[in-house]
């Protein structure tokens, strides 16, 4: 293990501990709710990174995947009257199926065509859930979805849920990290640059693309299931193209392909609108303008931009020092 990696791992451990003690100091339920939403969003972005970040294919249907996970878990919990954990397993299965199904079009259509396909998919899902009134309650939504519980311990407050989601997100982060920085992550990335060359290396690119889509869909569906039991209420009008767009914005702000960036993207995009609330009516437009300017001026993501700026200042400072040193020696 190199020294650099050791530092990285130490950083991550410190971050983990810091995040674990958060609810001990934050007693405000509203903040904890925002934290929980960050954790759920982070799971989605970690998944989206595989498809839009690494293989470079535009997936604008994340809200549809998210909705399928949420409804699958909520419906089975309600109608089969079983634990939400089974719902979570079902969400994983649903994610796997969506991944296999959505992966197929990604073999045939590329670029904007794929973004249109995924938008169409998400819209069909949303309209289906709003129209199956007998089962889903239609546009009224589903209420009183049971929270998670473990051996009789109910995760029914924001603080308790924070720990649960934290563990799940950390696990999701671990898996994503392991995949992205392995030969699989490498082959996903190479697919973005040049698919023909990958195929000529003996790689079944159809299989790899479907794998990437399946990972992405499982993350999305799991996050959806968590969301349903976290909110206790779901409504099809939440799962719009606006939601899909938000997930992609998180990915962009964090930087395409970077796992740590994914987390920062989720944090920034979830918190920034909350911080801009003082602008009242103007907060959404301000937020959008900030994001648009960011997309135009920092195409590698904000995290990267900050890191670069940091490096530049360090360089300038050390250059100055070097100059001063020379001056002294002279």
């Amino acid at each position: 293990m190199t020294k650099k990696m050791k530092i990285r791992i130490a950083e991550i451990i410190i971050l983990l501990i810091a995040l674990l003690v958060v609810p001990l100091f934050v007693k405000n339920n509203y903040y904890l709710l925002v934290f929980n939403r960050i954790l759920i969003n982070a799971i989605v972005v970690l998944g989206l990174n595989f498809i839009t970040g690494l293989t470079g294919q535009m997936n604008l249907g994340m809200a549809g995947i998210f909705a399928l996970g949420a409804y699958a878990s909520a419906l089975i919990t309600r109608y089969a009257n079983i634990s939400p954990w089974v719902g979570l397993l079902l969400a994983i299965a649903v994610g796997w199926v969506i991944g296999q199904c959505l992966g197929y079009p990604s073999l045939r259509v590329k670029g904007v065509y794929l973004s249109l396909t995924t938008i169409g998919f998400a819209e069909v899902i949303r309209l289906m859930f709003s129209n199956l009134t007998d089962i889903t309650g239609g546009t009224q939504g589903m209420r009183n979805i049971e929270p998670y519980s473990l051996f009789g311990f109910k995760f029914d407050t924001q603080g308790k849920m924070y720990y649960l989601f934290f563990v799940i997100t950390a696990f999701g982060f671990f898996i994503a990290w392991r995949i992205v920085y392995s030969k699989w992550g490498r082959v996903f990335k190479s697919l973005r640059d040049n698919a023909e060359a990958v195929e000529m290396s003996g790689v079944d690119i159809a299989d790899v693309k479907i794998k990437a889509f399946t990972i992405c869909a499982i993350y999305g569906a799991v996050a959806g299931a968590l969301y349903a039991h976290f909110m206790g209420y779901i409504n099809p009008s939440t799962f719009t193209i606006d939601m899909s767009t938000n997930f992609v914005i998180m990915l962009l702000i964090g930087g395409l392909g970077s796992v740590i960036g994914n987390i920062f993207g989720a944090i920034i995009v979830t918190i920034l609108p909350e911080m801009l609330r003082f602008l009242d009516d103007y907060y959404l437009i301000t937020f959008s303008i900030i994001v648009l300017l960011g997309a135009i001026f920092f195409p590698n993501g904000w995290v990267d931009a900050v890191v670069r700026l940091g490096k530049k200042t360090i360089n300038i400072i050390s250059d100055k020092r070097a100059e001063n040193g020379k001056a002294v020696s002279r």
Partner: protein
Amino acid sequence: MSSILKASNVTKKFKGLVAVDDLDFDMKDNTIHSLIGPNGAGKTTTVNLITGVHDLTSGSVEFDGKIISGLPTYKIARSGIGRTFQNIKIFSSMTVLENIMVGGHEQAKLGLVRGVFDFKASKAEEKKLREKAEEILNKIGMYELKDKLMKNLPYGRQKISEIGRAMMNDPILILLDEPAAGLNPSERAELIQVITKTHREGFSYFLIEHNMDVVMNISDYITVLNFGRKIAEGTPKEVQNNEEVIKAYLGNKYVTKKKVSGEV
């Protein structure tokens, strides 16, 4: 010598246009076999037919005793054929080492789920892959550049790196589609050196090239195409003195001058 790559009656039509017409050739193991011909003769199409990028209209391609025509590209690649591209196809946002390592993706057999949870196995596999890639980089003289981003490399280096990537799969045969195009003389010399050196170590090369210096210097055998048809084949010497070949390259009026220089 046994045959390694054999094309029998290979024909490819694109909407009525016959790109390759009833082509036969038989490439021997452990040779450098070149396919030459004027622009539009169907050379790149032939490579695309061998690698399964295009489907054959009729005929068959045999590699190492097995029919490969009709197989998908990745299966042909797995059977032991590597390839470089006329217009380079590199992973420009990745480092040189990573580029080469992608070539060995199929060599590493660890599955996705085991790769995540089995730290030891995945680490060992990654190490093996990296060492192999570094060894190949040494072979093609690019070890020092391994951590550079591919897009920052000069064109010649990028082209040679494609040969390295192809080698990761332990191929027996590597198809080179115009490797010297766009290279300056010193890069070209380096390319020839890489090809001849690795050829001595056991790689067979099927070469498509316009630059006759390169072709005549390193080829063991040459097949000449014109308008999709084979018009001649033989050793470099035989081909240089073939009337049909001279006619195809220079036009009818040069045929009477029997003596022809190396510049075909």
